[in-house]
């Protein structure tokens, strides 16, 4: 057999059949379901009188709409409550495993899946959510789908697919202290653009990737959708296996050994060819901060807001002018002079324990600057429990951060955690689109350490200055 990439291998293993029209039917091992993109899929099944093929291949949880404060009292917002209740009724009637809102395992679907060992190397994983790419950190082919496709998977456990191209990203050199996966992801998107990965599955390689923890790898793969890629992938290794061992849904005993033997084969062959190669030297990378309304509009913390007159095309210039107007920024402004009114630490990008540790290390013994509202939202109940066991919650609250209950929260503001018009926020989330965190709100994407540093300084500052390094 000719040399294959990791993506090729997972694809081949899941190919049910190739149809006469040239499309491939791909088997789906795992399906994550949440309240926002599933009601119409369940309704479709019900209307057609179709059974749900494999309820146990699904893990469901409410995350987008849930309150992050006083949830024991129920969901006050009626439309949010109805959607969560619809999920609960649907999963009950179809026998789908569900983690209830007050269960400690509840959390953001992309935090919960890995925590429970539902996410495994070499599997295909889908969810009606674009950040499903997160699970690629385990060497799983994971991608976001629409609600019609959610219904398709529920009914058939497959999806008609077209094979993507292979793209390899190699991060060369060691990442400097104080920087993390978020900086890698933003630097990459800054380089190739938000459509740079379109039509591709992106495999991340290089020493800087091998050195990342599973949390960091999830951050990196999570953001691969922001580069337009279908999926992000990292070949599993000892770090992956150590993370998975003993997780509730991970294989046990003899099955673990059998699985492990297979997982060790999940790497791109040395001679495998990629359609596209991107190489980034990260040894001198500085913390990244976005300045515009697309994740590709990013620069170093020591940089300045760029000048649209330097744009390479008239269209780019127009787009930059519009972004700067929306963001209320002037060309040439030093990034460190940008003052903030809000800080959000959380989301499926940066709501895991390591992210909270990174932020807490900066917040420890400091105070949130006057005029800033700062929120810390753990990615799951288990992350919250772990953080509390380590005393991180007290570090945050003593510094003036709000310590919340788990959910998607202010990443997209479907619950009450929204920004008011004109408010500028340093956010560890994944998108800085217009209106993303609330109508007229202004989002700057950063790492958890940079967000905490911005909270205590009141403006952007190089987190490394606060690390005693």
């Amino acid at each position: 057999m000719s040399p294959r990439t990791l993506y090729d291998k997972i694809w081949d293993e899941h190919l049910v059949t190739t149809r006469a029209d040239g499309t491939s039917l791909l088997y789906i091992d795992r399906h994550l379901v949440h309240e926002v993109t599933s009601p119409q899929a369940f309704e479709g099944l019900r209307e057609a009188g179709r059974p749900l093929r494999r309820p146990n291949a699904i893990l469901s949880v409410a995350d987008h709409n849930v309150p992050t404060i006083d949830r024991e009292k129920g969901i006050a917002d009626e439309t949010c409550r109805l959607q969560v209740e619809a999920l609960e009724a649907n999963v009950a009637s179809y026998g789908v495993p569900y983690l209830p809102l007050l269960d400690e395992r509840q959390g953001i679907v992309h935090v919960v899946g890995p925590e429970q060992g539902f996410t495994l190397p070499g599997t295909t994983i889908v969810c009606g959510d674009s950040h499903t790419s997160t699970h690629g950190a385990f060497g799983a082919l994971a991608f976001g789908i629409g609600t019609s496709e959610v219904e398709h998977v529920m009914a058939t456990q497959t999806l008609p697919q077209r094979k993507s191209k292979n793209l390899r990203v190699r991060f060369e050199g060691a990442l400097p202290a104080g920087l993390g996966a978020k900086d890698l992801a933003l630097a990459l998107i800054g380089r190739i653009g938000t459509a740079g990965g379109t039509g591709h599955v992106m495999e991340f390689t290089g020493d800087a990737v091998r050195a990342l923890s599973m949390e960091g790898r999830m951050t990196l793969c999570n953001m691969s959708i922001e580069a337009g890629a279908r999926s992000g992938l990292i070949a599993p290794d000892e770090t992956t296996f150590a993370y998975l061992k003993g997780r509730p849904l991970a294989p046990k005993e003899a099955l673990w050994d059998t699985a492990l033997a297979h997982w060790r084969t999940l790497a791109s062959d040395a001679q495998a060819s990629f359609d596209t190669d991107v190489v980034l030297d990260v040894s001198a990378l500085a913390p990244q901060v976005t300045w515009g309304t697309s994740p590709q509009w990013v620069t170093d913390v020591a940089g300045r807001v760029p000048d649209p007159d330097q744009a390479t095309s008239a269209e780019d210039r127009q787009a930059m002018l519009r972004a700067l107007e929306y963001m209320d920024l002037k060309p040439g402004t030093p990034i460190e002079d940008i003052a903030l009114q809000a800080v959000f630490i959380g989301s499926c990008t940066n709501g895991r324990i390591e992210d909270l540790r990174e932020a807490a290390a900066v917040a420890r013994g400091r105070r949130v600057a006057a005029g800033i509202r700062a929120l810390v939202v753990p990615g799951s109940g288990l992350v919250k429990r772990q953080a509390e066991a380590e005393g991180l919650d007290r570090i945050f609250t003593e510094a003036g951060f709000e310590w919340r209950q788990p959910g998607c929260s202010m990443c997209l503001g479907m619950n009450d955690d929204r920004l008011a018009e004109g408010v500028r926020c340093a956010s560890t989330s994944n998108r800085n689109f217009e209106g993303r965190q609330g109508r007229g709100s202004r989002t700057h994407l950063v790492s958890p350490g940079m967000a905490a540093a911005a909270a205590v300084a009141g403006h952007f500052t190089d987190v490394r200055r606060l690390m005693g390094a």
Partner: protein
Amino acid sequence: MDPFTVLTGTAAPLLRANIDTDLIIPKQFLKTLVRSGLGRNLFHEIRYDSDGRERPDFVLNQAPYRKASILLAGPNFGCGSSREHAPWALKDFGIRAILAPSFADIFFNNCFSNGLLPVTLPGEAIESLAACEGPLTIDLPAQQVRGGGQTFTFEIEAARKAVLLEGLDEIKRTEANLADITAYEARRRQEAPWLDIQKV
């Protein structure tokens, strides 16, 4: 699903790059339990001011474009989230075809699930179509866009074309492969027994 064959209609120009799904349909409208009724909220944040009044400078608030059935857009249209609410909102408004130099992957797939035709054409072609007077015709069988005396040919994968032309139900199509799926599952249980989940 409604078949798509030949469409003649008004084309609204919205020639920005990277029109994301948050812009197409913002989060507050994702709380619906149904697929219908989202048209009035299409492009909500740029279509209405903060008091809910129409912004006269927005293209879909202008006379000929209120009834647009075609949208002309910039590259990377539909980037961002997987929300199928984006094509639902476009379709509910009356849009059946979007012409852009490129599309984001998930949005592109979602269009075909809803009988919407995403047409990929070079930026210059789209600009020149935006400049022409009168309606455009999108002829899917011939794979042509015609308007203002111009004709542009576009590419579309044969399987995608068939789905739109015949308004095929994808699940029904896949059900024709049920025996293959069952055979795959039996084989998979042997080869990868660790994947079976008994209980959460």
